[in-house]
């Protein structure tokens, strides 16, 4: 089964029959440039110019794109990505040593950067409390100067109800040398 093809039947100056599909890309019976009709030579030359300009532009940009792709696998990029991954994995492990997924949690930090760091580390699996006051545990980041931290930070849990007589604990199970958050990835 084929779609019936409908052609323009009119001779110059006649009207197309009713129901003829409209041509959105220009009209006939107009000036040459409006008709899209140019001489053969002009058509070929213009076509060549457009092809050359377009292919040169596309090719140059494609080469640039390939360089960008390669840049993502440069050792420095890989190293930064690995550090970033290990840092949040470290915080995640420390948090898991403090809380279970069904305990309601609030993140309580004095600055937004620490809040975002903790959210990025544990946000996908913890059960957030509706309000800080109703949370079973308040998590925060504390800067320390010795070993045992994740680039100098440890996760600290403050329990609403002391557990085994302890109302505050520090995360364990992972550590990472260095100081401060890892280099921020591109935003």
């Amino acid at each position, binding site marked *: 089964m084929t779609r019936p093809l409908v052609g323009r039947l009119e001779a110059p100056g006649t009207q197309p029959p009713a129901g003829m599909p*409209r041509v*959105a890309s220009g009209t006939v019976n107009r000036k040459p440039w409006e008709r899209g009709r140019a001489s053969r030579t002009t058509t070929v030359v213009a076509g060549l110019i457009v092809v050359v300009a*377009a*292919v040169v532009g596309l090719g140059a940009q494609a080469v640039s*794109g390939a360089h960008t792709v390669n840049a993502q696998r440069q050792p420095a990029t890989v190293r930064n990505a690995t550090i970033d991954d290990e840092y949040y994995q470290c915080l995640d492990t420390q948090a898991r040593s403090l809380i279970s997924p069904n305990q309601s949690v609030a993140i309580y930090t004095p600055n937004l950067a620490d809040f975002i760091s903790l959210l990025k580390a544990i946000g996908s699996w913890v059960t*957030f409390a509706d309000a800080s006051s109703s949370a079973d545990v308040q998590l925060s980041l504390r800067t320390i100067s010795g070993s045992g931290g994740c680039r100098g930070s440890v996760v600290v849990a403050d329990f609403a109800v002391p557990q085994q007589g302890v109302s505050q604990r520090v995360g364990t199970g992972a550590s990472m040398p260095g100081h401060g958050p890892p280099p921020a990835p591109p935003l």
Partner: protein
Amino acid sequence: MTTVSATLVAMMVLGAAGLLPTLALVGRRWITFPLVPLAGAVIAAVAATGFVAVGGTFMVWFVALAAVVAVATGLVWLRWPDRRPWATEPGSGTRFIPGYRPFGALGALGIVAACAWCLRDLSTPTVGFDARALWLTRAGWLLHSHQQLLITLRSPALVLGQSAYPPLVSASTAVSWSVTGNHSLRLGVVVTALLNTCGLAVAAYALVECGRRAAGRLAASAGRAWSAVPMAMGVVAAVLLVFIAFGITEPFMTNGYADPLWSLAALGAVAYGLQMRTGRSEQGVVLVLLLVAGMSKDEGVVTAGALIVLVALRWLVTMPTDRRRMLWWRPVLVGAVELAAVAAWPALMRLIHARGQTSGTFSPAGDWVSRAHATADGMAPYLHVLVLAAPVAVVGGLLLSGVRRRSGVANDGWGWAGLACGLVAVGGALVVGSSGIAAWLLTTVHRVTEFPALTGWWIVATWAVVACASPAIARLEPEAQDRDGTEMASAANEPDAGGSVAADGTADDAARPDSAARVPEMR
């Protein structure tokens, strides 16, 4: 389960959900392969919307929706047997011009190879800032109980207003985590990167289609050798576009951001919705891509909304007059349904008072001029493609519009209108928004200009394919030019002729060599 095996399982599950609806909408085409997981991701996004709105669990919603869509597809095929993808047209395979299918396969192979080369970036274990803080974090929220999900979406203590962004990336990741048991951010990043690549593959393959379409229209009258040139250029341009797109969108293409997904899906929607004929199969492609764009990010919602209107408008104005009188409601209805689907999540977020959705403020009108200047300055470095695309379009429009018509590619103006939609949508938000413009531009402008930049390159690539047909058209006799030009112009813009889907689902009679030869029969 390792990341590699979990990725395979996740893509198969998304693909299984999207397989039948994609086959029903698009038919058996090369682009069906990358569209299948994208359609599955759309189902996941709709499932997330239903879960937030009604309750239950996310995965029950996903499985139920996939089943309902599959049953609906089966019923459609039962009711209309001619719409079954395996219902081939007798003898249609032999009527295609030589090289039509091999070039199609070559284009698909080239795109896959180029994408695979670029996806080597996944060997770098990057998880983007927003991916970690937002897109992948929300995937975990979708696997919590309904009550807990509402708490996390509403609670002001969680600060991030962006958590009300559309759900497609998070929902796809949630499906991946749920079916594999691998809840790693790495899996979410890889699945998102593959979805991005699927969107790119669909958009790039449109160039192969352009070349094949042009060749099909010229083969009978201009000779097979000459008509093969646009087909070859279509393949080359498609492969180049892959590298260009990765260059523009990296590192966000492979680090879990949603920006490449909506940008590439919107690009594909421009290609198939505004530059190809508006056949049933193309409309199916556009539907899937617009839903992907509109369910991925706020910028995608606005751009997809504008493109939906534009696609419906083109469908309407290119309808034959008598059909428009009777069937004007079709594009209006399809557009309205698409708009409703895209608007559902933002409306729901307002309804549940999600964080970041209840305080929409504008900057003072007096600041708009200075903000517009800053926006234009901020966007300019990422839109240098316009320096090439504009003159190419002008030269092409003045001297090659006839070639373009005969090649079966729609007016370039539709592509520029699509580009303008993206620019106005994003630029308008930057100008009238209340956030500090300098910081806003610094952190987002390179990502939100991906769509207009990609569309600019697509326009250039299309002109390259079209211009390759000029030697073939110059060889035509003047009468043949008259004949082909008028006939093919009509067919190129004919929106809804009820064309049958051929063996490969092209719905493209003009790809057959006898299309021009049939014109005398029409006289």
